[in-house]
């Protein structure tokens, strides 16, 4: 399969791994954050830790849109669907995320009309086919998915489709990275920059990280070779004492981003003054709101919103894990009270969440190794 097989070629991967071993200074410990949840998933899925030296620590960043969404927003969205007899449409990613009163799938089992869609355009299509019902698309995602929501709203307005609205939870990546860097307990050496987000925003928005914070950034693809090559590029910069933004994912990411997508976003969205991030708290200008010109299609303006605030269970340490201060397995609830079947924190729900990725692909591997070591001893 083109664009996949060549990036999983064992010989090239072995060579990249050897290059990393050669470049990494054994006397140094490297803390590299992959910002994007897609990267976290890929790192575990391909077992990349097995081909990296132990002094390269990958810290999982905040780039999983499902994981950073506060529980109260899910409850709000589902409350609208229940009270106003609305069709609740969302990506599959959202379906198992628990609100305080259950996940969208659990609400579906209790009779709420919940539909899985693959794009916001599909939700609009449901509205076209069900003129007597209102369809609310529960929008999540970074700049990756925001343009498709924007284009869908533009189409809804152009066609005058009145029985459709968007409950907007779109967030932006840069303020989250800033919040991480501002966190006092955070020591990072470099960033693997987001891949899909960068197809939209390009590489320029990361330049301040290199310039002001002195940390190298390499935007990366999602295949094993992409990630290893990005680590090679970061190590080369670190060895040379440099801090620049580089683009490893040139086959997809244009340096300047996607102007048409950015234009659609600017047409439909404006920045919210502040927005709550699960685990990170309130971050100013970190999320998108639907402009007044599109108020008719904005679920938050159209329906009474309860404004639910849910504090996460005290014992759950999602915030620390999200910021990379704790490893998933260091959380008190990990693997006993909080599992992919019964997630307490959102990091356990999305397969891009670092806890779920760690649980599914790594956790029992670690257990297996411990038992084999102790049985040898």
């Amino acid at each position, binding site marked *: *399969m083109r664009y*996949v097989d060549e990036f*999983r070629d*064992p010989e090239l*991967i*072995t060579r990249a*791994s050897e290059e990393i071993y050669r470049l990494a200074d054994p006397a140094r410990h490297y803390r590299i954050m992959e910002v994007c949840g897609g990267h976290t*998933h890929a790192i*575990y*899925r*391909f*077992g*990349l*830790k*097995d*081909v990296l030296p132990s002094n390269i620590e990958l810290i999982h960043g905040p780039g999983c*849109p*499902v994981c950073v969404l506060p529980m109260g927003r899910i409850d709000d969205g589902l409350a609208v669907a229940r009270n106003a007899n609305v069709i609740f449409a969302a*990506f*599959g*990613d959202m*379906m*198992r995320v628990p609100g305080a009163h259950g996940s969208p*799938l659990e609400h579906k*089992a209790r009779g709420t009309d919940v539909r*899985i*869609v*693959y*794009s916001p355009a*599909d939700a609009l299509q449901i509205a076209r086919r069900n003129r007597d019902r209102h369809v609310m698309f529960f929008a*999540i*995602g*970074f700049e*990756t*998915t925001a343009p498709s929501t924007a284009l869908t709203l533009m189409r809804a307005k152009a066609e005058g489709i009145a029985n459709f609205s968007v409950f907007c939870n779109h967030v932006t990546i840069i303020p989250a990275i800033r919040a991480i860097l501002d966190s006092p307990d955070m020591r990072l050496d470099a960033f693997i920059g987001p891949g899909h987000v960068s197809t939209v925003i390009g590489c320029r928005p990361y330049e301040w990280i290199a310039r002001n914070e002195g940390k190298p950034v390499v935007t990366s693809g999602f295949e*094993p070779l992409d990630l290893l090559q990005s680590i090679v590029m970061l190590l080369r910069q670190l060895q040379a004492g440099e801090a620049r933004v580089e683009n490893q994912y040139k086959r997809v990411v244009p340096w300047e981003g996607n102007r048409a997508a950015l234009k659609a976003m600017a047409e439909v969205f404006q920045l919210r003054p502040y927005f709550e991030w699960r685990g990170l708290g309130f971050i100013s200008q970190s999320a998108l709101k639907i402009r007044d010109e599109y108020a008719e299609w904005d679920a938050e303006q159209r329906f009474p919103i309860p404004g639910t605030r849910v504090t996460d269970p005290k014992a759950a340490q999602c915030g620390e894990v999200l910021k990379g201060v704790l490893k998933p397995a260091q959380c008190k609830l990990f693997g006993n009270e909080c599992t*992919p*079947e019964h997630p307490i924190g959102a990091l356990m729900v*999305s*397969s*891009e969440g670092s806890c779920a990725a760690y649980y*599914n*692909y*790594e*956790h*029992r*591997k670690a*257990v*297996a*190794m411990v*038992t*084999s070591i102790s049985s040898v001893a």
Partner: protein
Amino acid sequence: MAHGAGGKASRRLVEGLFAPLLFENANAPLGDAANVRIDGASVAITTDSFVVNPLKFPGGSIGELAVNGTMNDLAVSGAKGQAMVATFVLEEGLPASVLEGEIRAMAAALHRAGVVMVGGDTKVVERGKADGMYITTTGIGRFMPRVTIDARSVRPGDKVILSGPIGDHGITILLARGELDLEADLSSDTRCVLPLIEAMVDEAAPGIRWMRDPTRGGVATSLNELARDCGLGIVLSEEEIPMRDEVRGACELLGLDPLHSANEGQFLAVVAPEYADAALNALNRTEGGEDAFIIGEVRTEPACGVLVTTRYGGSRIVDMLVGDPLPRIC
């Protein structure tokens, strides 16, 4: 709904509720068919319900599935199906032509499998109470001599054989629902696997320890069940797992794991190492078994788990499916 998706929740429902209250021996490993002794003779019996949307899909339909699925459950239990009964739950308003088409599909599948239908029952429910039609089939069969299927007989070093490419059925159904705007030249793999199993039994009967058809929940769920039942680890080598490019592409695109995708015409077999080549050769020589591979082996670690290794030295744990596979978008 997760309780019906074939993964963890399904198993918990059976082990936690059905087995203790309904089964004579609640602790016996859960197989695909039961062994009933009647007047000293062993009879294999199994039952399965078929609920699929859409009723017809590329490569098959619910009627064909209902026959093949139950025959396959018998076959992987080491039994050859002899007779079948079927129950139909029909939704009011189901076009007669659709029903007739499905009955014809069943007749053809019965003929191919060499099994006879000996009875049945029909119920009609109100419109909106069923997805067109549900079919339940129950089959009885005769155990093949020389074959004993038991997860507890599996040993470290045994080889894991897969009969052909995975994921065709699951991905075909996902695409056939038409919600995805994705098209692929793909059809369901539904078929009766008995001829393949008979060929393998002829050559390697004493070495066959365990078999299963990886339907809902896919290869990953079946092998996790085996790992738990035998207390050992299953280590698969990723590049040996046969898969069509269309399945791989769709899974890459949708963020699904093909190891969790359903199959309706494949089976897994664990075979003692000294019989593995004979078993594989027998499959490869039989029509429809050309793409069978040895995909991994049984080891002591990870105990009760499944590990997938890659050619470049990475590895990951593959768990049972939790709920239905949901595509990832963002």
